């Protein structure tokens, strides 16, 4: 276990290093000159030169990458071109809202995906199964912004059950979280269905039924406990899909999280923020995967850690 942990952590660090190399390379092929973006239009050539030296942009590329890494290690993600504030500060201040949205999204994903997937697996091959699978495919085939705008129109505008946009109360959370839940719940339903179908075939399930265990507890106690494992791993993998969805959903619902920050940065071509958010999200994905693997290996002794 200890050796495995070290190996996985080392791999995660290597991947993160690769991620920084790519974001660094991306910031190099940007046509816009960062110095001019910071100096503003009216700056004299001397000011531009002195800022270039201050930022170290006149040094060789590998040296710049080295200092970029050093700054990253200290939690410095650079400065926003437009807002002139630290990117790290902006990201941190918006992290709580995004984490809250994520918790709400996972709740709805499971609330939709679990029952649908279990029902489909129990009724395998019937019209109910096919219906659930088509609906869950429809969920994953609809872009987040379409789901979000339709939910807004019906539940906030027509019926007035929820606020149109904003942040602050549980009522504000429902629609954006539900949007993400509908879109990704379809994947969960499909995943749980195939994992349940696999488990329900096992001998121990037949044994449980043969000894007269009620169907309900066969499903919940015997089957679900094993079928749920791939889902745990999936929530870890989900962070990437979630971050992509958050950009769209937060901009539709005016949710003041990292996604909205990224969206505003796109509109103003504020590259340091886009890079900072991409980097943070990549770090989240790597850690999420690691965590999911560890949880699965702890919960399930059959998963031999390789």
């Amino acid at each position, binding site marked *: 276990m200890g050796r495995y942990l070290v190996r996985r952590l080392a791999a995660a660090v290597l*991947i993160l290093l690769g991620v920084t190399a790519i974001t660094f390379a991306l910031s190099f092929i940007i046509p816009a000159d960062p110095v001019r973006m910071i100096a503003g239009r009216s700056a004299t050539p001397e000011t531009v030169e002195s800022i270039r030296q201050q930022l170290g942009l006149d040094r060789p590329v590998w040296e710049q990458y080295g200092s970029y890494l050093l700054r990253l290690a200290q939690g410095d993600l650079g400065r926003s071109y437009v807002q002139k504030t630290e990117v790290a500060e902006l990201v941190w201040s918006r992290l709580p809202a995004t984490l809250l949205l994520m918790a709400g999204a996972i709740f709805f994903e499971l609330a939709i995906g679990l029952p649908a997937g279990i029902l489909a697996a129990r009724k395998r091959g019937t019209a109910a199964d096919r219906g659930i699978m088509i609906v869950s495919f429809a969920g994953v085939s609809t872009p987040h912004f379409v789901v979000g705008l339709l939910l807004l129109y019906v539940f906030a505008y027509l019926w007035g059950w929820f606020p149109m946009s904003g942040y602050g109360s549980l009522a504000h959370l429902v629609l954006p979280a539900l949007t993400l839940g509908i879109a990704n719940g379809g994947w969960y339903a499909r995943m749980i269905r195939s994992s349940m179908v696999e488990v329900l075939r096992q001998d121990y399930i037949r044994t449980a039924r043969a000894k007269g265990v009620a169907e309900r507890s066969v499903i919940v106690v015997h089957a679900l406990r094993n079928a749920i494992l791939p889902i745990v791993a999936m929530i870890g993998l989900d962070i990437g899909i979630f971050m992509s969805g958050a950009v769209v959903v937060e901009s539709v619902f005016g949710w003041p999280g990292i996604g909205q920050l990224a969206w505003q940065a796109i509109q103003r071509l504020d590259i340091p923020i886009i890079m900072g958010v991409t980097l943070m999200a990549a770090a989240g994905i790597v850690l999420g995967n690691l965590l999911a693997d560890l949880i699965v290996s702890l919960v399930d002794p059959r998963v031999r850690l390789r």
Partner: protein
Amino acid sequence: MAASGWKRFARDRIGLAGSVVVGIFVVAALAAPWLAPYDPTEQFFEGLTLEGSPRPPNPEFWLGTDLLGRDLLSRLLYGARTSLIIGVVANGAAVAIGTMLGLIAGYAGGWLGGAVMRFTDLMMAFPALLLAIALAAIFAPSLWIVAMVIALVNWVQIARVIYTETRALAAREYIEAARALGAGHARILFVHLLPHLLPTILVWATLGIAATVLLEATLSFLGIGVRPPTPSWGGIIFESQSYFLTAPWLVFFPGIAIMMVALAFNLMGDALRDALDPTQRGR
């Protein structure tokens, strides 16, 4: 590709329904100039109400008009062309890149295969949309840039699938036999390996179009997709987003179009996988 696979596919009614919708979409895109009732860029005087707002669906403009008084149905039909071009070009490029890298990495193995696969690990760590956004923000977006951005993001998964299958195939005896008979690497790759991978490539290419259409729509919705006046479904929603409470049809119809096309390709790809992939049988 075994004929029995096609027979299984032909019996899958859901998959067939998906294929029919795919067919309608392709015909609509190709025949847009003949099917569209109006020019998609023409701004009609009678396309706006007296107050200057878009008109809801009516006998003259079947699906209503947009903010500039243009016919929504015509714009949707021409928008299908954008989705089709992006779907074919971007996904074609992603499949080509993914197949080549997966094939070479799987066949070569060793440090080369390891390096390619570690690179796919790295790419998987990026949230697809954010990476596409970063790329699209860096390059001024046009139809072809958007297609390339999507291809750069979407090749990863197919590369991994092809890698795994190639490794299994490359260990088989007939490959060894071919090598013993003097076949070169290129011959083994393209004559002995690639044909066996075609079913997998077909499945992932079909599923990939659904992902591509969704990603293009999302980029256009965020304002960094295909540039106006080229009609695109996501772009139509982007333009009318702030008016959608008073003109919900401008979100509803393009939204339905995106969903139908993505769903159709997903159902078709799923049915193809069931029919062509023996390991999936009986599920």
